[in-house]
């Protein structure tokens, strides 16, 4: 069983480039592209279904804006597109043995598009901008940097934990208040041109950074592209940064085109109006018939799940571990994946997904293979037996009703809810699907609304695998005390808390992958056994591009990390 998972994981790690047709000379495999000399010029048009919100990295809170800031600003570190491991980009990093001091040094070659070299101050400007901004949602990321909170609250005029080397203005050290294993990812922060944004982070400035005109019209960039025009609601036009420090891109222009919906993306890819974009599984078969495109598949960094409210006053059965296990055995997830996402997903039985290093490979996890008889016997053990109408009831005569909520407008989740409800009916549970608006659902979840029984929703994960915000017992909402959080299953376990804490702020200061991975194995094992979620599945991302686009190698952690190497074959 374990081997199977490992193989599956490995298969997903490789971006499967399946050329969709038999056209000769069509499918540009990476090896072919490597031997050919890249041609210069051309334009890449990427499709998005929502317009960007801002080009100020500190304020970015959506994928679309993140794509543009990722193209115009380089970061000090870049996570590997396949493994998520942080690697030097603008700067190199070293960590002290007590895991409290991080030292960075900018690459000597790194320059802004106006010719100025990148220096330590530029990173500090980014951090100060987070402190000054009132609208950023990222303040808590830096709370463990010594002096950051004081600066942010206006109690200090500088961040005491950041020290720039007086002898080398490209080198700086950050001191953390406590050992935090996510620091290396968190401290990537934002590297902003001080010559532009410096004036918004002086001692006297307040929150001007939030409305700075350069947020919508960036003038100086460090990335492979520079900003040219934002036609609101329609497209963002970027032109190549000819002086990009890692070598100018081959393509002349990158256009981020806003379209209304997924159907429009598929249509545009078919007609060639769009160079690349991601499509939904339901459109895959259709797109595969188009000879002019190629398809890259890779596993999504996230999963879709059914969360059980283990404290539900109405669906009391969910409090029992055996019932939740029965709900895992009682749904034919492989068949569901075939029906709902056309097989383009992998069943999940843990919180971490296979592409993350934290994915549990060293521990035996129950796979919850579909087994209706086992599900029924578990329900019986838990005291739920069929009543006269065939619906399960407990000793007190209470019927097993189950409302599965999900956010409306997401066809995939709506279908999943419908299919799950139907399969649970087969077990004798009176289940029904109930889609509702995302905004209402989110509020119910974070405030711990007791009317929710089961919820289908998804998590997007990151390169840093810390699950504290979702699974630590401190994150369970408490409506009575108006405490909010993402722990809406109400499930807690002291051993799980300890594993999360040890991997987050280890008492021995050991932040190595090997040591943290062990903790996450314990953590996932507990989740796997207790089933506060049915972990559902991790989708495949289906990136479709025109055959003419070369060196395009997207992965779970990034699609554009090598954009300066892309070229268009004429």
């Amino acid at each position, binding site marked *: 069983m374990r081997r199977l998972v490992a193989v599956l994981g490995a298969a997903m790690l490789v971006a499967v480039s399946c050329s969709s047709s038999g056209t000769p000379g069509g499918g540009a495999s990476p090896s072919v592209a490597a031997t050919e000399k890249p041609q210069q010029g051309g334009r890449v048009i990427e499709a998005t279904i929502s317009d960007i919100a801002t080009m100020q990295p500190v304020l970015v809170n959506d994928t679309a804006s993140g794509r543009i800031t990722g193209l115009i600003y380089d970061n000090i570190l870049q996570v590997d597109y396949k493994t998520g491991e942080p690697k030097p980009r603008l700067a190199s990093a070293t960590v002290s043995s007590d895991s409290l001091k991080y030292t960075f040094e900018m690459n000597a070659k790194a320059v802004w598009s106006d010719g100025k070299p990148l220096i330590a101050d530029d990173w500090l400007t980014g951090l100060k901008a987070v402190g000054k901004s009132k609208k950023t949602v990222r303040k808590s990321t830096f709370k463990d940097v010594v002096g950051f909170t004081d600066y942010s609250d206006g109690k200090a005029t500088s961040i005491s934990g950041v020290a720039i080397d007086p002898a080398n203005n490209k080198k700086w050290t950050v001191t953390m208040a406590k050992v935090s294993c996510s620091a290396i990812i968190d401290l990537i922060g934002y590297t902003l041109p001080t010559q532009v944004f410096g004036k918004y982070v002086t001692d006297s400035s307040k929150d001007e950074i939030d409305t700075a005109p350069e947020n919508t019209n960036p003038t100086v960039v460090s990335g492979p592209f520079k900003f040219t025009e934002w036609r609101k609601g329609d497209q963002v036009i970027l032109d190549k940064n000819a002086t990009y420090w890692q070598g100018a891109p081959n393509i002349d222009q990158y256009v981020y085109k806003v379209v209304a919906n*997924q*159907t429009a993306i598929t249509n545009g890819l078919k007609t060639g109006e769009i160079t690349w974009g991601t499509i939904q599984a*339901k*459109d895959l*078969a*259709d797109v595969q018939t188009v000879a002019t495109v190629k398809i890259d598949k890779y596993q999504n960094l996230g999963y879709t799940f059914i969360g059980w409210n283990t404290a539900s006053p109405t669906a009391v059965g969910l409090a029992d571990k055996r019932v939740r296990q029965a709900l895992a055995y009682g749904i*034919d997830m492989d*068949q*569901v994946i*075939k*029906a709902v996402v056309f097989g383009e997903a992998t069943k999940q039985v843990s919180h971490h997904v296979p592409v993350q290093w934290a994915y549990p490979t060293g521990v035996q996890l129950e796979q919850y293979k579909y087994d209706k008889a086992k599900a029924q016997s578990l329900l019986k053990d838990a005291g739920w037996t069929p009543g006269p109408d065939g619906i399960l009831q407990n000793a007190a005569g209470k019927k097993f009703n189950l409302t599965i909520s999900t956010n*409306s*407008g997401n*066809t995939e989740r*709506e*279908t999943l*809810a*419908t*299919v799950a*409800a*139907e399969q649970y009916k087969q077990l004798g549970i009176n289940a029904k*699907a109930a*889609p*509702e*608006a995302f*905004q*209402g659902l989110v509020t119910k979840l974070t405030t711990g609304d007791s009317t929710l029984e089961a919820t289908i929703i998804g998590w997007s994960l990151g390169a840093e695998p810390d699950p504290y915000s979702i699974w630590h017992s401190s994150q369970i909402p408490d409506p009575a005390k108006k405490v909010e959080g993402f722990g809406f299953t109400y499930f807690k376990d002291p051993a799980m808390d300890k594993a999360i804490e040890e991997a987050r702020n280890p008492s021995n200061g050991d932040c190595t992958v090997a040591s943290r991975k062990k903790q996450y194995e314990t953590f996932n094992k507990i989740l796997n056994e207790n089933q506060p979620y049915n972990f559902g599945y991790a989708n495949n991302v289906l990136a479709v591009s025109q055959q003419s686009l070369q060196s395009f190698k997207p992965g779970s952690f990034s699609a554009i990390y090598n954009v300066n190497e892309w070229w268009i074959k004429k």
Partner: protein
Amino acid sequence: MATAAATAGGVIVPAEARPSRSLWDNAWYKLRRDRLTIAASVTLVLLALLSILAPVFADNVFHYKFEQQDLFHTYEKPSFDPPAYLLGTDEVGRSQVVRLLFGGQVSLFVGFVAALVNFLVGVPVGLAAGYFRGPFDDFINWLITTLNGIPQIYLLLIIAALWQPGPLTLIAIIGLLNWTGITLYCRGQTISLREREYITSAHAIGATHARVIFKHILPNVLPLIFILAAIDVGGIVLLESALSFLGLGILPPTPSWGNMLTGGASYFVRAWWLVVSPGVMIFLTVLCLYLIGDGLRDALDPRLKTHESH
């Protein structure tokens, strides 16, 4: 305006050929001769019956429950065997024909009941505003101008985006927003009628307000209201489908023609039959309602009588 006996686009209809009848008799006489309207009415009644009897058909003809899934038989092409596959199956192997019948229940229910709400709000408000005038009329006038000033789809959209509706809330929302047309019409007619001689003389002989309104004004206003209502129902069925397209209509798994059409459209290349059947149902229903509205107008509207009757 030419008299009733005058030319209808050149065709002379001898006045004495027609016995004098009341408005309703006259309308009925004309309706019976309007084959298109008859055909539309029959079709509509048939559609309504099919929908109302959906459970009976599901159990006895198709032997398939509307929520029944079969993940091994998704996207089955339309076929006679088994009967449940008459219009094919959808993405989770449900019978399209059975869902279509149940979807009709929801769509037609929403259409008719919301129109009824419009009617029940619009007529009394319009009569009262037109009859009593004064501050109440000013207020209603302001309210209508205000509601009509907001593009309706925006209003519906915000409400629907913020409170995701089920069939009943959708009825309430549409019902409470859509009444202005009927009210405006009622008010206008009432204002012009209350100055007529027979109304003033009714007042003179001591008739109460209620008597004047119900005996003299309402019967004169009602016929055209029915035309407006028929067209209204069609408009609401279309509106429901548009809201579904925006993801704000009746939510699946409850079937409605609107959400079936929207859902089917995303599988167009895989299964065209999922798009065609709800589309045809919506088209047919709305078409019939408009034809009936037209027919009623021909039959009832004395002004249009001269040039729209054939």
